[in-house]
């Protein structure tokens, strides 16, 4: 037996013993997801046990170094763990922007002290993070952001406003882009970390067309932030921001997988014209799934172009919007019910409406295409 076979056998046995049956049920709704954080209320004992067991081994972030709360697994071992979890239908123990976005940026740009302090908290689900990027006047033109951070000697003084801050009202800390210089657009941005409980921080949820409120407006009114809570150098935050966006886009692109099943198998379309469209969609979805697999392997091996998450994000989100369009069409009038039990509280129609944001959040499709044109194709003036 190879070491990897041994690892698989051991992992299978450990998961069998430690993953509670309830945590092997498919996620039915947002309410089943564990986000962690200071104010988190576990939905069940099983949810708490599962997070504690996984975090205890560093397996919420299996590929991070052990020193920072990770599992220290090799890429091959991390894949085995993923496969074994999938085999028994185990839920992800923790959903976290700390894991998917801030963590990779800290691993690359953080100081040793910052890594030792922040990463283990993320790994254990103790601190829930939110992302302060967009502003009312800085959407696609993100580098035009105006939220100001003044150097007051022993602290930064923050004033301004963010928007589209995911779960700002539930988050403990924020990673935030601020303007520390007006001399240069991209070269005047810094990347700060601070506690959302700091005086002067306030949030207001935004009601979406889907009826849910995953985003907030976030206001900073004379917020004092300790000087050492900056990641990377002053005025060099754009490098950190872009790197983090790559990870965010990679994560968002997974929406294209849509849970993995065939839309046609799920909807059994009878109308021949709809069947034809759904078959065309299933071809595209399966082809994208192959791309997603190939991209992940290339990304890990360092063979992927640094701008390729933009290509993936564009393809995955446009695909997810199309999936929802066709699902609504296949469901007919019943798919338009907003509150009935039959429709699981309007799941199809709400997901359809929510999916429209996929090609806006994390950078619009148009911005992703600009990036591909410029950085991958090398087209002039892009």
């Amino acid at each position, binding site marked *: 037996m190879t070491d990897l076979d041994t690892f698989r056998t051991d992992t299978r046995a450990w998961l069998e013993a430690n993953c509670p049956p309830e945590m092997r049920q498919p996620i039915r709704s947002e309410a089943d997801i564990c986000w962690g954080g200071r104010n988190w209320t576990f939905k069940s004992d099983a949810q708490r046990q599962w997070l504690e067991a996984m975090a205890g081994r560093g397996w919420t972030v299996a590929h991070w170094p052990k020193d920072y709360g990770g599992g220290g697994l090799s890429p091959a071992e991390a894949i085995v763990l993923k496969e074994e979890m999938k085999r028994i239908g185990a839920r992800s123990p923790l959903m976290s922007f700390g894991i998917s976005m801030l963590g990779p940026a800290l691993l690359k740009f953080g100081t040793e002290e910052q890594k030792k302090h922040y990463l283990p908290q993320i790994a254990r689900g103790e601190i829930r993070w939110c992302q302060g990027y967009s502003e009312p006047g800085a959407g696609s033109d993100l580098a035009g952001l105006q939220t100001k951070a003044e150097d007051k000697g022993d602290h930064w003084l923050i004033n301004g406003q963010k928007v589209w801050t995911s779960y700002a009202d539930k988050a403990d800390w924020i990673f935030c882009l601020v303007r520390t210089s007006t001399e240069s657009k991209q070269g005047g941005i810094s990347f700060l970390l601070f506690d959302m409980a700091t005086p002067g921080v306030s949030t207001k949820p935004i009601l979406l067309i889907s009826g849910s409120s995953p985003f907030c407006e976030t206001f900073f009114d004379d917020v004092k932030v300790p000087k050492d809570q900056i990641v990377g150098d002053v005025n060099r935050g754009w490098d950190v921001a872009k790197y983090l966006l790559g990870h965010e886009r990679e994560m968002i692109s997974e929406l294209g997988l849509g849970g993995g099943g065939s839309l046609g198998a799920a909807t059994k379309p009878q109308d021949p014209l709809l069947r034809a469209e759904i078959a065309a969609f299933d071809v595209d979805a399966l082809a994208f799934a192959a791309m997603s697999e190939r991209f992940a392997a*290339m990304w890990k091996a360092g063979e992927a172009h640094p701008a390729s998450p933009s*290509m993936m994000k564009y393809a995955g989100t446009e695909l997810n919007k199309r999936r929802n369009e066709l699902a609504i069409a296949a469901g007919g009038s019943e798919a338009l019910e907003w509150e009935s039990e039959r429709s699981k509280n309007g799941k199809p129609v709400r997901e359809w409406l929510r999916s429209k944001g996929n090609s806006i959040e994390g950078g619009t499709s148009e911005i992703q295409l600009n990036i591909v044109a410029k950085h991958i194709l090398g*087209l002039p003036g892009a």
Partner: protein
Amino acid sequence: MTLLTDDQKMLQETAASFLADEGTPAKQLRHWRDTECDDGFGHALWKQFGELGLTGIAIPEDQGGLGLGATEAALVLEEIGRNLTPSPFLTTGIVAAKAIAGTAHADRWYPPILSGEAVLAVAIDESPRHAPEQTVLEAKRQGNGFVLNGSKQFVVQGASADMIVTAARTSGSSGERSGLTLFAVPRGAAEVENVHLADSSWAARLAFANVELDADAVIGEVDDGWVRLTAGLDAGRAGAAAELVGVAAGASKMTFDYLKQRKQFGKLIGEFQAIQHRAAHLHGEIEIARAAALKAAQLIDSGDERAELYVSVAKAKAADVASLAVREGVQMHGGIGMTDEHDIGLYMKREAVLGELFGDVYYHRNRVAELNGY
């Protein structure tokens, strides 16, 4: 999905440099077209394929071949597509070689295939649209052998072939998968009409009028040819998908280069966002099609039960994307793209023929739907 191994990368480089030197439109496609050669490809180049071992890519090692898989074939075919190289590689080297594998016909034909001397063809279609289940070419037992009546069409390189692997019905009726038998039909047995296609390739229409064959012309089992036929066809479909990815990549490379050269309104046309977004979209689609083609090939090689599904995904997606690549290619080239002098139009014609071969986009979308139970 696994990334390419070092050996696979080496094979890819060998094929790429060989075909970029010897397989270009100027040396092959245009040359054979403009000299009115009714093979449409060069026998000398096929022998060079043989010298490099490429004619035996799918032939087992103990029979003198390289014994490689669909993945390696896909790597070579992507380069063939990129250079629009006309050759018997796909039909002789992949489909026919697979269809006769493990039979006495392999002993007979593998040696001249290995040396690049023999050309084999496969005769499946009997109507303008691919539908192997609907084979009605009749093969009736007579004495010790069979007598064949009916017709075939779109038999790629059929008039150049030394032997044609032919699907015929020995029992049952149109639409049934059982009752099909593969025959090795020697050159001259059927009446041949050599048909020139849009991409300057040649495909035959065959007429069988009481064509008598010995019992040993049967490839595999009588009435039980479906599995063997599908194995050959699926290898061919995965290969055609890879070749289409090459067509798309070659056409788009030519187009993206043009966007960086052509000026209008005092600007390079690649500076216009109306062009940039379409180019970026196309790039992503080609990457996705390549991933699908590689996935299908890898699943064939590992004997995975999802191979059939992914072969159809790959063929449908690659044809779709290659079609987009050639349409955008001609449009973005403007007037020059409409001229025979420029190669971009050759890509458009090749895509059309290759997209049709072994089932078009609609055939394979339908197969994906059926395999998913709807």
